[in-house]
């Protein structure tokens, strides 16, 4: 039976009620189960998104070879063993859409917000478990539509994940812009609704459901990061929804929001007065905050993991919070740096350069704080901690090239070249994944009561970390040589053909890295059942999630909720018996609360 939180949580006591398999595991209202559901869905989508990248990278490495095997498997995408150009465009479009929205937004936030927020603030569950479950199931509905769009008869959407009109609005300009694009738009609309539902819950829970003693400045940085992520999403996603609505109207009702003076195949079309640039403004108003929605939770996870495994407080806790706030606010002021050469008023180009370069400051503060957290720590090496360190490296690499692109002048040279691909993959496509991996390895014992296999974790890390650099670092060179992105092959241009060998290497490494992820997936599912049983607090961490019974119970704590007396970073505090003091431990006589 499905029951709501209001009716059953009397006096905040854990409440037991009869459950069927369906209500316990499928339509569960429990945040711990919903978190796993998001994780499994994300893993499935990541495999599909990764597979698409293997396919299109195969095309880029060997553009003149035929692949009869691939044609047998994916017959609509290949002709005579060669990938069709519109199928290539569809693959890159769906790869971007899947990875950005379904894996790095829904799954990253969905998994960790659901896992960590109620636990780490000392709540029984989210403010509205019903809304939480709805958010997941609408995400699944969105996934069904998105999967359907991949198999649309005339072609999957192929206008890029950025779906600029007129290409995305007019099926006559690209076959994938017919039914495929319609399904994509429905999927994204549902996705936005799902994400908004989640965000509403997370914010309200954090502000209203904290346990006694848990002031805002005693929350771990993982919760702070998820809090700001939800705020950004709440304000930014609706604008994408409005862009999608206007695009749907242009496509289906003949309005001219984004279309004007169009001639396709020699025939003028009856649209006038619209502007494609308007779409770009509305899209990037979400599009830019979106990448911060992706990276902020990863940053929060990494702050936690580095502190715990270094046995040291995070350096500059308050500075970390204010830099998160700074990133949150500034992320709304930089969107048009994606549009420097779009034809918008050059004056705007100057304005957006200023804000874009300034947003580097809070990001760099965070990097310096992480480095200082490691300094003079007692750093435990395990898969979680090294993925967190890998995150810092990748964030530095990807973030610094953002400075190049943030200058509108330099962007004239580098816009839409492989340099941009290198930048966003390092900082988002790999760093955010590393944050996710660190989070999974670290909180696996909390999710399943068992430990993951370390050796597989190290192999996973080593190959993925080195592989990521081998794949994306050379793309900087391609960009600096002027090679444009979203090209099906480079043979038509002498200027762009210098990297044939390098493209082969990149593809081979991509395939190896893709296969390596299955080691992680195997490790994950195998350890769920056969991993070493985890103790109550395997990492000797201070936060509340480790005080809840390992097997996971409804309502999280038997009896009363825990009471908090200190911040979460009392690691190696002088005068303490152990190298950590749990948040629930009262202050000793004369002890001053730190931070």
């Amino acid at each position, binding site marked *: 039976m499905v029951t*709501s*939180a*209001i*009716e059953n*949580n*009397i*006096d*905040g006591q854990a409440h037991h009620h009869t459950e069927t398999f369906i209500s316990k595991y499928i339509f569960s209202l429990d945040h711990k189960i919903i978190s796993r559901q998001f994780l499994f869905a994300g893993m499935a989508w990541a495999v599909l998104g990764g597979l698409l990248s293997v396919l299109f990278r195969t095309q880029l490495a060997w553009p003149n070879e035929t692949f009869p095997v691939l044609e047998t498997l994916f017959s609509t995408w290949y002709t005579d063993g060669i990938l069709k150009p519109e199928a290539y465009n569809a693959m890159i479009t769906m790869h971007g859409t899947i990875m950005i929205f379904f894996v790095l937004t829904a799954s990253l936030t969905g998994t960790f917000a659901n896992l960590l927020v109620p636990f780490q603030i000392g709540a*029984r569950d989210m*403010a*509205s478990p019903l*809304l939480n479950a709805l958010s997941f199931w609408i995400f699944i509905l969105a996934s069904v539509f998105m999967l359907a769009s991949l198999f649309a008869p005339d072609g999957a959407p192929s206008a890029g994940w950025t779906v600029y009109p007129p290409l995305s609005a007019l099926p006559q300009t690209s076959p994938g812009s017919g039914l495929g694009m319609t399904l994509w738009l429905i999927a994204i609309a549902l996705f936005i609704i799902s994400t*908004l539902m989640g*965000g*509403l*819950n997370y*914010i*309200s*829970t954090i*502000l*209203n*459901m*904290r*346990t*006694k*003693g848990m002031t805002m400045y005693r929350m771990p940085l993982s919760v702070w990061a998820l809090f700001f992520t939800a705020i950004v999403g*709440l*304000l*930014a*996603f*609706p*604008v994408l*929804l*409005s*862009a999608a*609505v*206007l695009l749907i*109207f242009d496509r289906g*009702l*003949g*309005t*001219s*929001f984004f279309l004007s003076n169009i001639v396709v195949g020699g025939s003028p079309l*009856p649209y*006038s*007065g*619209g*502007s494609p640039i*308007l779409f770009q*403004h*509305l899209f990037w*108003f979400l599009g830019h905050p979106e990448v911060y929605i992706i990276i902020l939770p990863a940053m929060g996870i990494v702050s936690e993991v580095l502190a715990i495994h270094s046995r040291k407080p995070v350096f500059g806790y308050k500075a970390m919070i204010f830099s998160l706030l700074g990133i949150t606010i500034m992320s709304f002021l930089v969107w048009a740096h994606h549009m420097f050469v779009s034809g918008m008023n050059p004056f705007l180009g100057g304005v957006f350069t200023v804000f874009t370069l300034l947003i580097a400051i809070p990001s760099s503060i965070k990097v310096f704080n992480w480095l200082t957290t490691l300094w003079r720590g007692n750093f435990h090496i395990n898969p979680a901690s090294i993925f967190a360190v890998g995150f810092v490296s990748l964030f530095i690499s990807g973030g610094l090239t953002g400075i190049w692109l943030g200058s509108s002048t330099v962007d004239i040279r580098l816009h839409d070249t492989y340099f941009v691909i290198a930048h966003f993959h390092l900082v988002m496509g790999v760093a955010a994944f590393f944050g996710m991996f660190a989070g999974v390895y670290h909180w696996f014992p909390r999710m399943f009561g068992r430990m993951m296999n370390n050796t597989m974790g190290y192999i996973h890390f080593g190959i993925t970390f080195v592989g990521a650099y081998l794949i994306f670092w050379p793309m900087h060179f391609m960009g600096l040589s002027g090679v444009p992105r979203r090209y099906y092959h480079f043979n038509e241009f002498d200027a762009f053909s210098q990297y044939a060998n390098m493209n082969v290497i990149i593809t081979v490494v991509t395939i190896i890295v893709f296969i390596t992820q299955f080691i992680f997936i195997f490790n994950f599912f195998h350890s769920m059942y056969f991993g070493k049983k985890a103790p109550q607090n395997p990492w000797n961490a201070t936060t509340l999630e480790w005080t809840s019974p390992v097997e996971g119970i409804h309502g999280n704590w038997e009896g009363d*909720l825990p009471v908090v007396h200190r911040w979460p970073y009392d690691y190696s505090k002088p005068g303490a018996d152990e190298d950590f003091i749990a948040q629930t431990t009262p202050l000793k006589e004369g002890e001053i609360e730190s931070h």
Partner: protein
Amino acid sequence: MDYSLKYQERNQGAHKFIMWLAIASSCMIFAGFTSAFLVRKGAGGAWTGFDISSVFSISTFIILFSSATMLVAHIANKKGNLGFASFALFLTFACGLLFCYFQYTGWVYLTNQGFYPAGNPNPSPQFLFVIVIIHAIHVLSGMLFLLIASVKSFMLLKSDKQLVVNPNSNVLQVRTDLLSMYWHFMGILWLYLFGFLYFFL
């Protein structure tokens, strides 16, 4: 926050907070539409205005009246007068229906005046259309919940069951609170949109 409040009361407050956040995010959708409107108008070119008060004034009056009936339902609920509350909720729902009807007739009138959304060399009607339609969709979803609430209240009244299943639970009150917040937002949003369109269209 006051930690001495029972968990459950905090949770009810949390639900209301969720409604506030949902209202904020809904505002952002309309912010997107209204800024697109202003950008397009500012870019020059063909643009014919229209006096919207001649078309949607009745709708405006109806939706404001429905906020009053909603308030009545809210107060009646607080006082425990289930029958009256149920009736007032239903009346609010009926006002919603009337609102939608007058929106429809307003549109028929506009299209007859040559103010139609698609294929029109004048771009202003398409913005008007989108804004009004999306607001109407919000109103329709609110109406669905209004109907459910009024039916449930009525059935509870008829069933002679105790009003409250548990002395500490107050589902009905919270439900009406949330509905009432949403419905007043519909009215205020319409006022803003009406005013915006009146001045800028």
